[in-house]
């Protein structure tokens, strides 16, 4: 460190902190959402703030922007270039917002005003702070859109938000954020609502924007992978406080906070597919329940001792001290932060799920040429049929999981709904244990519904709020023909099976956390003793630390019962962890299907390869050395499918590795799924070229 001191000094005199937050407290009535947060940010720096729901990370960023509701009580200090922001009037704050401090929000689908053109909103952002003529501002707006990578900016500037895809909208929001060369950009979960390939593009655009205007970036996210790849320093927030801070490498490799360690151990990684996931028990605390008299993490902590439940620990410095930047020193809010023998001890092992347990050779689910068509109206009001699922075939054996992955709109959820006949399929056949589901009617259909059950994405809206848990599960038991007097016992058994206690049977859904609700959803699905369970994004609505528990539960139930799983998800890391085989969908078709390791280690379809390269890995060393293959643009709409191979409009092989002669083949012939080995099929004319795709 000492040898570096002169350069550090030079750097710090050049840039004193732009933004300093000291002992920030935010209260909404009785709820103490942020409890004493301090940090600072310098020009050119990327500060990551990572945390789960209720950690206070978004409240902190909105407090800096002065965007919290009027009656919020804010204490402490936020200074920007020496100017105190807490208590500043809305008028004075407005002069800073958008000019010196700007923000990118989570959901690009709703953060642009739907009734104004993208250009009008961007031009407004410029003209609020600078007295430019409309023509001049417009020219600048076009240039901004080009910087963030919007093609044909000159034309697209006059379009409305609904004419932009999600990724495009987020780029437009980033353009608005950088419009007046701000000093600090706060990005609050900027890519959470986006697909992974689009996430890679948007993070790159954000990086471009930051460098272009030489701003500091505060990157708020729940995704450790995004932090690993993009942040210089990180704050880990939990229960309204910073529980660990420091250099990204320090925190990821030498964490002194059991929560951070637990979080990292609970996240599935595509590069460590067989490593067991270690869930953190329980759920993140709600800010309303925090007392300040104990460590907020104590109840979930593997190393907790008596002191943890009686005294809330302060942030303790554990790293090499940097006098110029005391708030940059690695620190952790744990009583034992300075006792590596305690906080660095091995995390408790999780009970191993027997590999391949319950696996049999019997085909439980056989889907052949499944087609799902919707009637929709296009922009001109003409009726068009949109083919959401276009001839999909696969089988699932006992004890086997098929992971069905792809970007939003690829048809994976439509396929899941058609397979369970929650939606009538347009064509194709589905056989469950040899019985034809598509042809089943009346009583036979009812009996077949018991065999194939579904777990839904959103545990908050998929349970009837006015039915107790016993009623929810009991209803499914009644369908399965369990006599009334036997039901209470079966409900209790099912609750125990999914890791809940039987006393919870009389409670209502709102009394449970997200992870618990999803367990109730799983218990409901299992009530009919099904052969196949279709899991439609079963963990994507859950907090990261809770996901692992649900994934492990699913694996255990499968091993015990020999269930066949169709696991539909956009998160390839989760899918990689639980699946035996993988099917990748693009525009309604499976483009690659095969054994998990074969597909992940040596993808044969360029789309699979691009998807895999875009998934961030929560390890700074690994992540910085990786380069995503950036796919151009977005998935086309199923209603105007390109001729020949539908992927060619975005295909890196097509774009850079083919001569005109071979390109013609992609333009003319629609590739069929063909085996490249005994256990893998690929729909690509030139699967051998996929290996040569360079990471851009």
């Amino acid at each position, binding site marked *: 460190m000492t040898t570096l001191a002169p350069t550090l000094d030079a750097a710090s005199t050049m840039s004193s902190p732009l933004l300093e937050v000291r002992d920030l407290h935010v209260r909404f009535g009785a709820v103490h959402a942020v409890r004493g947060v301090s940090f600072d940010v310098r020009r050119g720096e990327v500060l990551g703030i990572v945390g789960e729901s209720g950690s206070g990370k978004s409240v902190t960023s909105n407090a800096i*922007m002065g*965007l919290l509701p009027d009656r919020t009580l804010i204490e402490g200090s936020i200074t920007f270039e020496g100017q105190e922001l807490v208590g500043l009037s*809305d*008028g004075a704050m*407005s*002069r*800073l*917002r*958008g*000019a010196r401090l*700007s*923000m990118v*929000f*989570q*959901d690009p689908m*709703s*953060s*642009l*005003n*739907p*009734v*104004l*053109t993208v250009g009008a909103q961007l031009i*407004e*952002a410029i003209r*609020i*702070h600078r007295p430019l003529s409309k023509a001049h501002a417009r020219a600048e707006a076009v240039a901004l859109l080009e910087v963030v990578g919007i093609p044909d900016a000159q034309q697209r500037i006059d379009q*409305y938000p*609904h*004419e932009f895809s999600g990724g495009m909208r987020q780029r437009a*929001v980033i353009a*608005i*954020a950088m*419009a007046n060369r701000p000093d600090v950009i706060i990005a609050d979960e900027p890519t959470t609502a986006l697909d992974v390939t689009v996430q890679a593009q948007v993070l790159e655009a954000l990086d471009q924007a930051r460098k272009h205007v030489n701003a500091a970036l505060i990157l708020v996210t729940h995704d450790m992978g995004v932090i690993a790849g993009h942040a210089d320093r990180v704050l880990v927030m939990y229960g309204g406080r910073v529980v660990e801070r420091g250099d990204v490498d320090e925190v990821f490799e030498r964490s002194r906070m059991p929560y951070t360690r637990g979080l990292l151990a609970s996240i599935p990684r595509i590069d460590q597919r067989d490593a067991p996931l270690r869930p953190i028990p329980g759920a993140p605390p709600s800010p309303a329940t925090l007392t300040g008299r104990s460590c907020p993490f104590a109840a979930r902590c593997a190393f907790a001792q008596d002191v943890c439940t009686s005294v809330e620990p302060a942030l303790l410095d554990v790293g090499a001290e940097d006098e110029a930047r005391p708030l940059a020193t690695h620190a952790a809010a744990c009583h034992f932060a300075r006792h590596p023998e305690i906080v660095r001890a091995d995390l408790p092992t999780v009970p191993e799920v027997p590999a391949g347990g319950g696996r049999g050779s019997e085909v439980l689910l056989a889907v052949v040429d499944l087609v799902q068509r919707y009637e929709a*109206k296009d*922009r001109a*009001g003409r009726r068009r049929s949109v083919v959401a699922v276009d001839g999909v075939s696969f089988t699932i054996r006992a004890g086997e999981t098929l992971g069905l992955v792809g970007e939003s709109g690829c048809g994976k959820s439509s396929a899941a709904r058609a397979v369970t006949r929650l939606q009538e399929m347009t064509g194709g056949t589905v056989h469950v244990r040899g019985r034809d589901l598509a042809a089943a009617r009346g009583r036979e259909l009812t009996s077949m519904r018991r065999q194939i059950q579904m777990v839904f994405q959103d545990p908050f809206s998929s349970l009837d709020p006015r039915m107790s848990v016993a009623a929810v599960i009991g209803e499914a038991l009644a369908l399965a023909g369990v006599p009334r007097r036997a039901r209470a016992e079966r409900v209790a058994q099912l609750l125990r099976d999914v890791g809940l206690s039987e006393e919870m049977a009389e409670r209502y859904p709102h009394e449970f956390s997200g992870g618990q609700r999803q367990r109730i959803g799983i218990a409901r699905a299992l009530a009919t003793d099904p052969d196949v369970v279709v899991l439609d994004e079963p963990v994507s609505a859950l907090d990261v630390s809770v996901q692992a528990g649900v994934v492990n539960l699913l694996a255990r139930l499968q091993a015990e019962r020999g269930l066949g799983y169709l696991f539909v998800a956009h998160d390839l890391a989760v899918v990689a962890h639980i699946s035996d085989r993988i099917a990748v969908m693009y525009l309604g078709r499976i483009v690659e299907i095969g054994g998990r390791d074969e597909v992940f280690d040596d993808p044969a379809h360029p789309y699979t390869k691009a998807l895999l390269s875009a998934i961030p890995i929560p390890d700074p060393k690994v992540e910085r050395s990786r380069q995503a293959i950036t796919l151009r643009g977005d998935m086309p709409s199923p209603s105007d499918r390109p001729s020949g191979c539908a992927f060619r409009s975005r295909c890196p092989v097509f774009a850079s590795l083919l001569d005109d002669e071979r390109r013609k083949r992609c333009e003319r012939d629609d590739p069929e799924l063909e085996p490249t080995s005994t256990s893998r099929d690929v729909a690509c004319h030139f699967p051998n070229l996929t290996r040569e795709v360079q990471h851009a």
Partner: protein
Amino acid sequence: MLRFAIRRFAIAAPMLFIASFVMFMMVAFSGDPMSRYRSMDPPPPPEAIASIERQLGLDQPVLVRYWNWLTGIFRGDFGASVANVDIGAELGARMLVSFRLIVLAVLIAAVVAIVVGVISAMRQSGAIDNVVSTLVFIALALPVFWVGVLLKYAAIEFNEAAGTTVFYTVGDGTSSGAAGLELVGFLALPTIVLVINQFASWSRYVRSSMIEVLSADYMRLARAKGLTKGRAVVRHGLRNALMPFVTIVALDFSALVGGAIVSESIFQWRGMGDLLLNGIRNLDVHVVMAWLLVFATATIVLNLLADLVYGVLDPRIRTA
């Protein structure tokens, strides 16, 4: 957009036809318009009654009468009236009187509703909102006829106290040839009655849709750009919040006409309300039908207009 308008009209035409048929039958079968002649003492000679019946076409079967009426409409002939008035001419004069009232009331009620609703929403659950909301609920609870009568008596007292007629409480002013400021004196009370009844419910719609808009992400972005709260509401909030309101105004047109009829009769206006009430009293089919035709056409045109305005406000509809 044009296709959309044409389609709406195409749907409206058969609707209008069915409504007219049902209405015609209901009035025709609800009694004998000649009964007041028959009950005269001494009764007029049967030949005289038969002659009036022939004149009015009442001697023909009801379906034929409907057919004659329907074909007459296309020739601009509204048919003969029991009360022996020229329905077409009468309609013209009375429409002017009534529409003046309704249009004025709609405009004032809408403006007041927007102002009250937006202020309420921006100060949600604050002191201003609580006071305003209480007043609005009182206004909602007041029946039109009651407020009307009350206002009428209050105005009479006021006029006596002032020693001159500020508010006219009888008539619509057209027969006495009132114009300009004097006309305002005639219009004031009935308009106030209608406005009180209508702005209250409308302001609740504006309030709730504004509250929804205020928490929208694009409002947060608008403020993150550097707009103050007030400017963000004016530039980004209003248009979004008023989109559903446009539809509400059009849908409430019928209720407003109902209120206008009551209001007109309290202040003894010779408007559309008076025409309808007399028509019903006399079992005068053609008068009721003429009234219905005007009312139904106005409703359809207004709803179409609302859809078009919605399209102008919301680009997502425009392209659909």
